[in-house]
């Protein structure tokens, strides 16, 4: 019996064994003081997991408070499994984005798959039917074999889980930069729908009510996952990592159907996913939120392995498990419901009035700690924050064009950059059409699914340009939200709320914490201006390899409403003769641009500027024009600038080309990444109506029927000329080509 080998409370204190579990001396002392005695081994484990960054947000709480979280549509803000917004007709959209970065750095297939599985559970634990998935991925630039492996496996892992669940992946984005080499980001988002009356919460309320465990059995996998994911990964450490939790979408599909049936039963009191820190966090949080206690008999927990200790059971992160509280006396019918779906379910405890989390194991009390102490009383740190020296240096650099000799070659090179190139290689692995509601699949500006029984759609997108945030976190934070909103507006949707995944380096570095604070300020201001509150999210800190942090990457997952599905708009040109308009002035802004990275091999200078008032006005005007039905196609200008967007307008529109004239310096006009710009096409007879609605639009050319792209300057000199095919070939095959390269 391994339990006999567990250190005693005194040994833990004396030998500071809590350090190995990720607790600091001060945190241990805080636990001792609050508990009124020294904790035993199991209890120390409970504290270390619940007070990890992953569960307690102890370093980031002060930052998260900056976000606006309220709005007329918000039904559930941050704090539950997922946020909820009203979409009218008594229906609501439920969504959240979460990171699974550390597991994906070690076992990319399993790590990415369980990331998708976890976020799906968060959504159905709220009582909602998951209807769409979105992902946001970051990898090294694919020049190194390890990064190619991580990319291929992570994509396959996400696909394997979402596809087997029958939930379509309808949007996503992938960017590549060496700052993510060996430390990829895998952020997965799930969106669900429910009727208002079906909203569930993770509460363990009502003295004597029964606690039921449902789902996969508990094994020794993922023990201390929450602690691990809150620490930096060093290459040497890989050998000593705990056994990774593996997922099984087959079990999850059955578990989901059973839970969604249970939601309709009045026997249900509360339900929560056993995510990070498994049984510990779900039991402690459900009790704490409800103001009650929970007593669990761990002998009754369905176990996968023999002789599991209380410590192992409480800290296991075995996947596909839910903790459920039902009315006393209704246990049998609930267990029968799960059995019908072939899912294991067992009564493991009950709700008490003493606000304690009490664990019984083999006839003894294995742990007894206040649920509030675990869930609510984690220390909160105001970390030191310091502006990095590089910031002032970058701010002092004058905006300048990179040196380009051949405009056409440069455009072809840009189209082959993996961040810009077609992501078909990725999204062809995702089932995009399951559930037969997908109106816009990956490849458009945003994903759109229809809400069956209405003429409405839900639009969604993920975005974050971390290079801008690295150069200027506040401006970059604004840009991240604004760009996500542009994606939705270009698809014909009104943005309504967002979730975020704050992926940063170690918060113990003052410069990293400064990035976190500043970008949160930028995000918050953009949320207010664009009227999209934050309704949930996740923080992933210590994304570093050997002490070098990633670029700050607060990924934005934005959701919007398409009020009339007839208004759904795509970036592709529609017919020859349509007028091509550019909305917004172009400035010489190359700091953090794809062109700068490509030519200089690094980024420097100022991030492009953004004026949120101008942004909001342009978005409103463009959306108004789309809703009035006078726009043929719409796209925002992002990485690579105008020339890339123009090419993309012709891709997927066989038989069409473009003939445009640009003003000012050619390099700036073609490749600058000035913000708040859009490329739209308008039918000739709607031109007057369009110009009246959208003030900053300038007609720059015409959609042609020649399958040629021609860009001229104001004097009529041809800057770029080529067939659509040559540009499209470069763009389409680039990622597959990079993956097949040998070294």
């Amino acid at each position, binding site marked *: 019996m391994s339990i006999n080998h567990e250190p005693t409370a005194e040994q833990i204190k004396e030998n500071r064994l809590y350090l190995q579990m990720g607790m600091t001396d001060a945190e241990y002392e805080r636990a001792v003081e609050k508990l009124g005695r020294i904790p035993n081994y199991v209890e120390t484990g409970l504290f270390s997991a619940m007070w990890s960054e992953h569960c307690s947000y102890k370093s980031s709480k002060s930052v998260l408070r900056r976000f606006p979280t309220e709005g007329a549509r918000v039904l559930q803000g941050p704090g539950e499994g997922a946020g909820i917004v009203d979409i009218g007709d008594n229906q609501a959209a439920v969504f959240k984005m979460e990171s699974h970065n550390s597991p994906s750095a070690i076992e990319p297939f399993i790590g990415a798959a369980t990331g998708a599985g976890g976020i799906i559970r968060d959504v159905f634990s709220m009582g909602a039917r998951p209807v769409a998935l979105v992902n946001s991925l970051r990898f090294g630039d694919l020049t190194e074999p390890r990064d190619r492996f991580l990319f291929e496996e992570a994509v396959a892992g996400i696909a394997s889980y979402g596809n087997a669940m029958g939930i379509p992946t309808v949007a996503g984005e992938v960017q590549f930069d060496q700052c993510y080499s060996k430390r990829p980001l895998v952020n997965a988002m799930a969106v669900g729908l429910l009727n208002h009356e079906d909203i569930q919460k993770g509460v363990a309320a009502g003295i004597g009510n029964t606690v039921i465990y449902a789902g996969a059995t508990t094994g020794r996998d993922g023990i201390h996952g929450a602690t691990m994911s809150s620490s930096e990964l060093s290459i040497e450490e890989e050998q000593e990592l705990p056994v990774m939790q593996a997922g099984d*979408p087959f079990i999850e599909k059955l578990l989901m159907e059973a839970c969604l049936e249970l939601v309709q039963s009045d026997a249900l009191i509360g339900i929560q996913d056993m995510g990070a820190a498994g049984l510990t966090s779900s039991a402690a949080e459900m009790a704490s939120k409800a103001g009650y206690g929970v007593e669990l008999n761990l002998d009754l927990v369905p176990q996968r392995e023999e002789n599991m200790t209380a410590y192992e059971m409480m800290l296991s992160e075995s996947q596909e498990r839910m903790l459920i509280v039902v009315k006393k006396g209704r246990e049998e019918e609930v267990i029968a419901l799960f059995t019908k779906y*072939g899912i294991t379910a067992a009564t493991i405890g009950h709700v008490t009035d003493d606000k304690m989390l009490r664990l019984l194991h083999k006839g003894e009390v294995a742990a007894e700690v206040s649920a509030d102490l675990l869930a609510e009383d984690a220390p909160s740190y105001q970390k030191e924050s310091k502006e990095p020296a590089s910031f002032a240096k970058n701010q002092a650099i004058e905006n300048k064009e990179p040196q380009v000799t051949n405009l056409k070659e440069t455009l072809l090179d840009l189209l082959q950059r993996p961040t810009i190139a077609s992501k078909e290689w990725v999204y062809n692995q995702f089932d995009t059409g399951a559930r037969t509601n997908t109106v816009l699949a990956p490849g458009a500006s945003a994903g759109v699914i229809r809400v069956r029984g209405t003429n409405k759609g839900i639009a969604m997108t993920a975005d974050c340009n971390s290079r801008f945030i690295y150069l200027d976190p506040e401006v970059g934070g604004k840009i991240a939200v604004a760009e996500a909103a542009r994606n939705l507006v270009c698809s014909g949707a009104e943005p309504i709320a967002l979730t975020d995944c704050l992926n940063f380096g170690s918060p113990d570095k003052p410069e990293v914490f400064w990035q976190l604070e500043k970008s949160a300020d930028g995000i918050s201001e953009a949320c207010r201006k664009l009227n999209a509150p934050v309704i949930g999210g996740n923080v992933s800190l210590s994304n570093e390899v050997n002490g070098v942090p990633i670029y700050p990457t607060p990924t934005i997952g934005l959701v919007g409403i398409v009020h009339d*599905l007839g208004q759904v708009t795509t970036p592709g040109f529609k017919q020859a003769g349509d007028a091509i308009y550019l909305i917004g002035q172009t400035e010489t802004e190359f700091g953090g641009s794809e062109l700068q990275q490509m030519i200089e091999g690094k980024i420097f200078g100022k991030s492009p500027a953004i004026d949120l008032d101008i942004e909001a006005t342009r978005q409103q005007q463009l959306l108004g024009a789309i809703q009035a039905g006078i726009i043929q196609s719409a796209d925002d200008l992002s990485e690579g600038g105008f020339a890339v967007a123009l090419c993309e307008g012709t891709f997927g529109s066989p038989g069409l080309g473009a003939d445009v004239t640009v003003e000012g310096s050619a390099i700036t006009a073609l490749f600058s990444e000035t913000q708040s710009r859009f490329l739209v096409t308008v039918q000739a007879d709607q031109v007057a109506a369009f110009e009246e609605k959208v003030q900053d639009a300038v007609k720059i050319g015409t959609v042609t029927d020649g399958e040629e792209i021609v860009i001229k300057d104001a004097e009529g000199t041809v800057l770029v000329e080529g067939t659509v095919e040559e540009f499209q070939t470069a763009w389409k095959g680039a990622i597959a080509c990079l993956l097949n390269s040998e070294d």
Partner: protein
Amino acid sequence: MKFAVLVFPGLTCDLDMYHAIEETVKQDVEYVWHTEADQLDSFDAVLLPTGTSYGNYLRPGALAKSSPACKQLQAFAESGKLVLGVGNGFHILVEAGILPGGFLRNQNLKFRSALEIVRVENNNTAFTKDYTQGQMLTLPVANEFGNYYADDQTVEKLKSNNQIVFTYGDENIDGSTEAIAGITNERGNVLGMMPLPERAVEAIIGGTDGTALFQSIMNSRGEQHVN
């Protein structure tokens, strides 16, 4: 006409099939959970949706074969009533021995979701009457095991009996034998196909080329299916 959507655990796209019947032929349609398959007799046609039955453990469709529901399905097929299996439903029909052949992983070894050009090779079946011979359809595929395999002898038989109903008309990306996308049994009352017609019944979700398949089933009502 009364349709059953037979659902084995892990078949996820039952909803798509259900909606396709409501959307196209507007007939009675019910989900039948695999433990309730003894009721199949009361239906006129059985639809097997796609998904990942039993997690695709062992081989896609292999575990469904040992389920009691599979016996009921075999009996239903032998009665001459219509059975349509798409995607993983096609895998189950093959594993159950109701249709010949087998499946390999896609040639690129990855799950592949795309729109495919599919050619109607035989419009003289209960499932394809409303198409024209040689018609080119655009239908979605979404699978990791879409690579249909049959040995030479089986292919000969399929050809001589006109059992090859659909082929890939443009590229045979997954590597199927003879570019086969769909086949019937000898009697012609069971169709298995990898493309997903139930996902192509409305313009707003990407096309209507699957509609005629469900209309064909309706228009074949009451016919005897003997070769």
